[in-house]
């Protein structure tokens, strides 16, 4: 049976074929090489962009991208299509890996050795760093007001919990929650 699938799906996998997500997931679960090629060629740019917005150094961001694709490959059998699209799943893996990276001890030590790094808020790297490509979500962020931008940056790009942000900014937890929701709703209207 397995071989039958290999053959029939193999034929679908002509170089320029576009797959729908369902096909792609089936093929990835079968560890198809062509499916890996397609996955990488199709999604690596978008995933790299989000990683690079969190991890400004291109080379380190590349390392994270590598780790992310290996994880996607290994964990594809845990992807549950009823909970969302494949891209959303991959995007969250990428975002989490990037945040883990900037929080790792090795990365922080390395940053400390850099001559001058624009920092703010108790030494956290900040998204307004000009080396970060201002594209995608980040570009949309620039249209938000200062406060909303900061909240999205801290929660989405730096992965702080609402509690942490509340403590950091000295505002009540409920206010942080409401403001982040408001910022996100603004964000949605800009994207759609």
């Amino acid at each position, binding site marked *: 049976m397995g071989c039958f699938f290999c053959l029939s799906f193999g034929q679908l996998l002509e170089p320029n074929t576009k797959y729908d997500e369902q096909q792609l997931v089936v093929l990835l679960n079968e560890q198809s090489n062509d499916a890996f090629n397609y996955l990488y060629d199709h999604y690596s740019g978008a995933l790299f962009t989000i990683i690079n917005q969190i991890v400004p150094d291109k080379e380190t*961001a590349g390392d994270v991208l590598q780790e992310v694709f290996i994880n996607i490959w290994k964990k594809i059998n845990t992807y549950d299509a009823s909970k969302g699209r494949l891209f959303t799943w991959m995007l969250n893996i990428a975002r989490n890996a990037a945040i883990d990276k900037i929080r790792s001890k090795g990365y922080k030590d390395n940053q400390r050795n850099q001559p001058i790094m624009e920092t703010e808020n108790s030494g956290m790297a900040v998204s307004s760093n000009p080396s970060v490509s201002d594209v995608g979500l980040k570009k949309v962020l620039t249209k938000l007001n200062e406060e909303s931008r900061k909240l999205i940056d801290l929660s989405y790009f730096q992965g702080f*919990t609402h509690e942490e942000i509340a403590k950091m900014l000295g505002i009540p937890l409920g206010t942080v929650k409401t403001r982040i929701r408001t910022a996100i709703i603004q964000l949605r209207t800009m994207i759609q």
Partner: protein
Amino acid sequence: MNIKEYISSGVVESYVLGLLTAQEKFEFEQYCEAYPELKEARDSFERAIEKQAMENAVPPPAGIKERIRSAIQQTPKTSKIISMEPTTRKSSSYGWLAAASIILFLVAGYFAYNFYNQNKELKKSNQEITGKLNNVDSLLNERKALEAENVTVVNMMAMKPNAPSANIYWDTTSANVYMLVKNMPKLASDKQYQLWSLIDSNGLKPTSLGLFDGGQEKVIIKMNNAQKADAFAITIEKRGNTGGPDLGQLQNMGKTKLQ
């Protein structure tokens, strides 16, 4: 719950962007099952984010693809991975780690136990199947024997109303005799059927080809070999009969040559 309010509260976007707490995330997934419009809103925001991300994609540095490829070729995918989906972060993850490791340990134990039991069952059914296969194998061998070129098929004519129904397959080259029993009425426990070969030139002196029990259906029985036979006969005899046939109890008779 007012689903419209819920949808417009920003929860959909927060879910997709991975900004909900574990509890909120769980709730959202439950509501998605119950409210198709919520699922639709989620899907539509997911597509918007995806489109946005794809349109603004910046190609990664060259060479990464090859690095990934060689890495995934070295690490064979494990068959079952416990889901480690991203959840909301806590500043200290050690408590979670401890809890997670205990859960992992329990889950691993559970799987190990299950695998052990499954393995035992598989072994048992494997044995059963092997046994059945052996039976089929020997049946097939007998079938083959029956279909060989030099086999004479003798239809045993009933001589009594309740006579057994059987065919004799006689391989004149190897002298093997098989009896295919279609139906063989049960006998009293001290009685058995007996198959005989009869030779004309001998004044039809019967030679025993073996005794067998009644109550069988659709089986093939290998009987004693017969070098020569002009006819076969089945009688009912005392269990373990060593003497001649009781022709009064002749059940079936079949001639090997058409006359």
